[in-house]
């Protein structure tokens, strides 16, 4: 019997386990399906991690290393090469069950009083399914190509087109160029990039790789291996414009079309989901609709910065400790955070009224110039948070003042207000 089982040994699981230990929880098990801790950070060998958390610029493996060493200082039990297959929530305060499979322990049913979900996300392949044309070899998600190159040591191709301008695609454009490949173009269907501006500069502009906004792949040719990709401009409704075709001779197409939280276990456990984040609905304590089950990191919503993953996961670890130490808050609180105009989602989605100020992550659904996000509660209280620009590619963080939270009756609405700054 464990007090806490953490599912996933990426930055989210590591931070949650460390923090729960610091808060006094002792029987903690961390389960990771890979042979090493660190999660996706092990393949993100570039730098740019940790500026917020450690005030230093680290590479992915270095950032993971800090937390792995921190975990090594605790008595948290770690099981590698162990896959969590199923979660069965306990009824009426009974322990939860986690079913696992591993080469060393076989199939096991573990009991625990609390669980932190930290299984991360995987790459969307939807873009691949919707691609017209033939189905030759040479089409990869950017993250798969990153794993081949940085972990296994294989360059997946020599002449490359990248579809989607997410950060992983941009990082791979630079990485493959430095390894001797020719990256011909990065193609983005939206009129703006999905990645950070700094990555457009240091990954594309540094290497003279053209970025085609409002363009998409409209044909693929090749029998065994990819030979040719056709790219066309799209109109305001994202429909290809005839006559704008450009043909690229290439052997590789990378897809960088977004990430999606990996929540099969969460759904099977009957945990309430948010269809906007594709993650669980949580309170400010990162607790899901099942008491004692918490979620954090990319399994909850896709983060662009690992620093925020750590911060959020430390909160989940602390909340799991508080729950175990006799501060169990029953299911989800009723105070809702609603998405008004311009807001794509918020995390958390629910708040306890008595918590004081509340930290909220959100994303907008369009690019703006100077604008404000307005938080308004149903008692007429408002707060404004101004920014020079908003973009869907960049997750924002605000702190709602205690007063706004305390006076709200049923909901607080976030909305984007342009031009009034």
């Amino acid at each position: 019997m464990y007090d806490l089982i953490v599912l996933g040994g990426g930055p989210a699981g590591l931070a949650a386990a460390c923090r729960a230990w610091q808060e006094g929880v002792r029987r903690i098990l961390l389960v990771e399906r890979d042979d090493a801790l660190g999660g996706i950070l092990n393949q993100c060998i570039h730098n740019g991690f940790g500026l917020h958390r450690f005030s230093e610029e680290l590479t992915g493996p270095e950032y993971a290393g800090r937390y792995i060493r921190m975990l090594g200082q605790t008595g948290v039990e770690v099981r590698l090469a162990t896959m969590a297959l199923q979660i069965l929530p306990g009824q009426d305060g009974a322990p939860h069950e986690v079913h696992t499979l591993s080469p060393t322990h076989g199939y096991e049913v573990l009991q625990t009083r609390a669980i932190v979900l930290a299984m991360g996300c995987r790459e969307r392949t939807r873009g691949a399914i919707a691609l017209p044309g033939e189905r030759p070899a040479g089409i990869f998600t950017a993250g798969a190509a990153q794993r081949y190159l940085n972990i296994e040591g294989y360059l997946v191709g020599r002449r490359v087109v990248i579809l989607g301008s997410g950060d992983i695609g941009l990082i791979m454009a630079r990485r493959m160029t430095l390894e001797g490949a020719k990256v011909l173009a990065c193609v983005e269907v939206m009129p703006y990039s999905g990645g950070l501006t700094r990555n457009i500069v240091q990954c594309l502009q540094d290497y003279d790789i053209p970025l085609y906004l409002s363009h998409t792949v409209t044909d693929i040719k090749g029998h065994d291996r990819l030979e040719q990709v056709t790219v066309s401009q799209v109109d305001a409704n994202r429909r290809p414009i005839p006559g704008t075709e450009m043909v690229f001779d290439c052997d590789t197409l990378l897809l960088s079309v977004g990430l999606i939280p990996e929540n099969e276990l969460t759904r099977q456990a009957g945990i309430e989901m948010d269809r906007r984040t594709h993650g669980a609905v949580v309170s400010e304590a990162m607790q899901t609709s099942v008491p004692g089950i918490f979620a954090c990191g990319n399994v909850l919503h896709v983060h662009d910065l690992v620093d925020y993953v750590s911060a959020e996961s430390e909160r989940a670890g602390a909340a799991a400790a508080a729950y175990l130490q006799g501060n169990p808050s029953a299911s989800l609180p009723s105070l809702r955070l609603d998405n008004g105009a311009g807001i794509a989602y918020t995390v958390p989605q629910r708040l306890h009224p008595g918590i004081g100020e509340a930290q909220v992550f959100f994303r907008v659904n369009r690019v703006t110039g100077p604008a404000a996000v307005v938080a308004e509660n149903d008692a007429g209280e408002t707060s404004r948070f101004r920014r020079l620009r908003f973009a869907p590619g960049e997750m924002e963080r605000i702190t709602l003042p205690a007063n706004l939270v305390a006076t709200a009756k049923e909901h607080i609405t976030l909305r984007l207000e342009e031009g009034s700054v």
Partner: protein
Amino acid sequence: MKEIICIVCPRGCQLTVDEANGYAVTGNGCPRGAAYGKSELQNPTRVLTSTVRLTGAALRRLPVKTDRAIPKGKLREAMALLDTVVAHAPVTEGQVLVADLLGTGANLVATREIPAE
């Protein structure tokens, strides 16, 4: 006057650098941006991250970086040199694999700890 985007942190401030005026920088959200703007126009540098061959471990590649930024014009040459580097497990994080890479003053260091097999 030149407009560039600061790449030092994810904020991505839009900098204006005045070459005629001692490379004075405006638009920076913090002092690091001013330093970046100055060096970017005179001697652009980048930290290089890549991998080298690894032996004696289950993993085949060891992630590495230069421990400080090196001139942008030397990145290709540095990559060619990395092709010849082989590391042997065990490796500690921060271990120097090549000292003073191409005379830049930067060391090539390991970024992941690899225990002996």
